[in-house]
């Protein structure tokens, strides 16, 4: 028997994603790549960011209220859109489920929107179980809030997100 706390940590959607591993398998191409390692346990991930030119229609129309709306007329070229994340990694169920949930979330977002969601995810993971006011922008990844109670596991959940953040920063730095 497992306690309710443990069942809360390992919710079915997390266990499912740890096996589903959406986005797993590096795809050729991509504009940036990041390798992240958790040296205390050996969990690691190599993640690639794949972009397509932003055409206004995008691949997904669910980017919603994430803050760039209204900026559409700004600048010479509209921001590209994330086509997909692809990754290769190994680690515990939390780190693999988190990479999978992130890969489900990212397509259709702009890099700026993804950066905002990564910041929100980080805030949630640092909340020690308190969560964040509005976790809607995180989609199914909001389920990982349960991990924030287990401070030793926060790094596991963050691994893929740190890799994604790094790829976005590489792209931003390259364009600056």
């Amino acid at each position, binding site marked *: 028997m497992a306690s309710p706390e443990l069942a809360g940590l*390992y919710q079915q959607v997390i*266990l499912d994603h740890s096996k589903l591993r959406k986005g797993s398998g590096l795809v050729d191409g991509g504009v940036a790549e990041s390798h992240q390692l958790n040296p205390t*346990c050996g969990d690691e991930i190599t993640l690639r960011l794949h972009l397509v030119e932003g055409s206004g229609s995008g691949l997904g129309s669910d980017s919603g209220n994430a803050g760039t709306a209204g900026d559409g007329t700004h600048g010479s070229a509209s921001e590209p859109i994330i086509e997909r994340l692809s990754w290769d990694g*190994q680690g515990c*169920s939390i780190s693999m489920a988190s990479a999978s949930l992130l890969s489900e979330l990212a397509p259709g977002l702009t890099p700026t929107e993804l950066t905002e969601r990564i910041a929100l995810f980080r805030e949630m993971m640092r909340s020690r179980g308190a969560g964040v006011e509005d976790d809607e922008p995180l989609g199914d990844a909001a389920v990982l809030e349960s991990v924030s109670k*287990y401070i030793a*596991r926060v790094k596991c959940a963050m691994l893929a997100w740190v890799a994604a953040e790094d790829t976005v920063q590489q792209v931003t730095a390259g364009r600056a």
Partner: protein
Amino acid sequence: MTLADQPRTTFGNDDAKRVRADFPALDQEVNGHALVYLDSGATSQKPRAVLDVERHYYERQNAAVHRGAHTLAALATESYEQARHTVATFVGVDDDEIVWTSNATEAINLVAYGLSNASLGRGGPEADALRLTADSEIVITEGEHHSNLVPWQELAARTGATLRAIPLQDDGTLSLDDAERLVTDRTAIVAVTHVSNVTGVINPIAELVEIAHRHGALLLLDACQSAPHMPLDLHALDVDFAVFSGHKMLAPTGIGALYGRRALLNALPPFLTGGSMITTVTLEESGYLPAPQRFEAGTQRISQAIALAAATDYLGAIGMHDVAAWEHTLGERLLAGLLEIDGVRVLGPQTPEGRAGLVAFDLDGVHAHDVGQFLDDRGIAARVGHHCAQPLHRRFGVTASTRASTYVYNTFEDVDAFVDGVRDIRSFFGVV
């Protein structure tokens, strides 16, 4: 010494329960369950006797040692040096052959940097024999903990020497034929663990010493997993250096020891320099005290050293033969229980002979971190990860494993709770 040729002990489960009662930290609930502590390979819990000695030191004696003429300074110095005598006796060596360090890692670095300094020409003619050159070789094994690997990589990089590793067999043991092949007249030092903290294998140290000495090489023994758990006579083993950590043997953190043969220690140039390790100091140069003081620069770990002596007294009162035999009994039960569980792959020998009382394993389909989380939910403390031995895990084709490691305070109930817990894990994670 192998465990198999020891006399059967009379120490049993009731004795272990009595010992357990001496450890305040073991008497608590974790996540609603009585704590089952099976992570002594990482660090041990401390008996009241050790905690009391450290408290008494701070309440009644606290003073700087080897300086000052007041009463407390004299008392502190006496306790500190008595502690050295106690610990030296515990491992079968002379008092001035024990150097206090922060831990075993610092002790290994002390030797590596001492050899490095000798290679730079420090230490005068006495240190000539300790010099490494680009032709020298350092030999370790594939099974070493990072603390007995990284300092040698660094020494090799600084001196141009070549680092070689004796490979492990599929069961985690090392072959003496490989050792014969790798240890040559070029070998300056062989650094090897006595007991693997992952496979539990007890290495054939006497044979390795013979091989090393036949080629004029030194042998450093990592005794971190043996000094706490079995009788140890370093003079009889004839090793040149040995290191161990206090916190793994019932003492506080912050104290460890280096054993070195007297002549070697007195020839080895110092590592850390400063106050307390000198004879005459001018603005240009300094003379150094003989060992052990030449390696004990600065204010020392006094309470910790005294507490380490209290810990070895405590272990000595139980008797190290009984400690070793009881842990072997626990290890046998642990191994047998785990081997019956579907999906368990034990790293190292599949039989208890020549094995210490710890077992590391991979559980098919469940990452070690998740195993550890599940066990923690039941109040069971085990180690998960690579146990600071990445090359060894790579050798077994895994990145992480789960390890249960016993000590004299563990009982059959602890082992059974662990095995029962592991048995339930794969169904919880939906892999069966």
